[in-house]
């Protein structure tokens, strides 16, 4: 029974981390059809921002939940103005340019901070379920994931910005005719996606190794989950990260963590083969 509880907690935790990691990429891909291969480096920048702020004496939660998203959101604005705005509608070129950007960011961070970084301890301590111990931080991650889900859903579904953003996503020309400036909306959307990614990097910083190349571990997983989820941002990402997180954790439990990852990748390939439009293209048409 304890084992089932802890395993369930692990599955939920895996899905929640995957969801947090993917949400920013899904916003940028779903709204703008830009695949941001520098996504992993945005996560890394978020983690660095949180760790540096925390080591400078800022409260760890302020560093994770406010400093990291703000900083990466600003980076997102700069990147959109200097690079992405020239690449709308050029899917392959945007992938190549953001791949170049990811190398550039890795190079910059390595040059400035070196190859390793003093991490921060995981806050909040732990608790026991029967014979097994786990940390409160897993519950905190879950809470952050749910809060982000509600926040992004609320923004896209119920605010004026969300309405305009979805309109621009569906038909930029028509939105422009109605007096909206699509370029500004794209910029804001990209910044939002970057900020959400930075937040993910911030909250994952205490539980991951902080190196300039840490993004590489995330980008492929996030990319696969977003494509597997399909065009609808929230329902697609929730369903895909739930499914893949579940498969990954169970696979890791019954075999080894390495094969858990392999099982995730294999199931992603089968999913894309069966549902080329992603889960949301098949089951949740017309949702956010």
């Amino acid at each position, binding site marked *: 029974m304890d084992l089932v509880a802890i395993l369930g907690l692990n599955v939920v935790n895996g899905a929640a981390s995957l969801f947090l990691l993917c949400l920013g990429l899904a916003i940028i891909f779903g709204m703008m059809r830009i695949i941001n291969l520098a996504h992993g480096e945005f996560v890394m920048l978020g983690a660095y921002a949180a760790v540096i702020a925390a080591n400078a004496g800022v409260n760890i939660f302020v560093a994770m939940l406010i400093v990291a998203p703000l900083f990466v959101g600003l980076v997102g604005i700069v990147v959109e103005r200097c690079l992405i705005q020239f*690449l709308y509608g050029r899917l392959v070129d945007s992938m190549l340019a953001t791949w170049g950007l990811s190398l550039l960011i890795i190079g910059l961070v390595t040059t400035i901070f070196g190859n390793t970084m003093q991490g921060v301890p995981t806050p909040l301590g732990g608790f026991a379920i029967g014979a097994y111990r786990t940390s409160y931080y897993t519950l905190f991650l879950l809470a952050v994931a749910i809060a982000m889900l509600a926040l992004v859903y609320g923004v896209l579904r119920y605010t004026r910005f969300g309405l305009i953003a979805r309109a621009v996503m569906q038909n930029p020309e028509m939105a422009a005719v109605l007096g909206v400036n699509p370029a500004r909306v794209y910029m804001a959307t990209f910044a939002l996606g970057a900020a959400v990614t930075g937040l993910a990097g911030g909250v994952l910083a205490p539980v991951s190794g902080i190196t300039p190349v840490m993004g590489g571990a995330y980008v492929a997983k996030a990319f696969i989950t977003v494509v597997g989820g399909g065009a609808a941002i929230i329902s697609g990402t929730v369903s895909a990260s739930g499914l893949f997180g579940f498969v990954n954790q169970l696979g890791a439990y019954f075999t080894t963590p390495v094969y858990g990852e*392999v099982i995730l990748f294999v199931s992603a390939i089968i999913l*894309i083969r069966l549902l080329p439009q992603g889960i949301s293209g098949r089951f949740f048409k017309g949702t956010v």
Partner: protein
Amino acid sequence: MSASVKLSLQVVAILVACVAVAVMPVAVDLFQLMQFTLFASMAVLALSLGFIWGFGGILCFGQTAFFGLGAYAYAVAAINFGDSTPAILLAIIVPALFALALGYFVFYGRISDVYLGVITLTVTLILFNVFNSMAGDAYKIGTARLGGFNGMPAVPTFNMPFDPSSVLFPEQSWYVTGGALIAIYIGLRLILRSPFGRVAIAVRENETRASLLGYDPRAIKLGVFVLGGAIAGFGGALYVNWGAFVGPTIFSLSLSAEIIIWICIGGLGTLIGPIVGCFIIEYLISQIGSQQSFNSNLVLGAILIVFVLLLPKGLVPTIRLLLEGAGRLATKGRGQAPNAAPDLSAGQPVGAE
């Protein structure tokens, strides 16, 4: 440029390349010769992706999967047989069969575009994870231990066909690698001139139109993909011959990224472009690595961004356009009509340059 001028230019270029391969061991010292051998083996990999992406329209993010499989197949077979001849054949056959299976799965499922990129990338990650974890005595094929994350050291290098006692010297290895690169280039040129190559380009341009004309785009793409996989696998064998070592990092994301950078910089839709891009970038990386003043990621990233934004066609097509412009000016000066004959020489991508 008329077709005959283009053809004679190509022949001249190939002759120059042959001469360069022949005199290289005399012109440079051994260390540089080894470097060039490495670059040439990677250029074979560049050529394979340049072919399937530029002429088949298949953006494969995981060409290293075939490169690495070829390298591992060569290493395992060479250790078991002690002779490199069957090992080289296996290094071509194993990745080709893998490409056949993967390509059947993908193309006959009508997966294209980004989804194809995701699947090939994922396959590479799977291979990386699997080969990385195959350490210990449990994982061996014949007498060859796969070695997990440590890789397989001391792999026998190339020998004279069917004569394991006479191992090739570095100079001879250079002749084999450089010669193979030129041979593959010529072979791909000939394929592009053949009916199959023309149909492949037609499929890249417009799949629907090609299928309405009675061709099966799925089969054509599969053929191009398998050919690309076989060439990449052979490149893997050449790579192992250079270093006598293969490890799981051959499947890494960064090598996959590098191939795409070579092609972007050299020029998509040409065969010479990927080779040029590969040599330039690899030379640059080795220079940066020996100087320690800049981080190589920083430089590579900046180069890639600049090329995508300012020179999206790549070096070779840009230079070709400049040359054609100059040639047109010259012919105008002599009072001839520019471009009198429609220029449709085979092998050159029609329309999409």
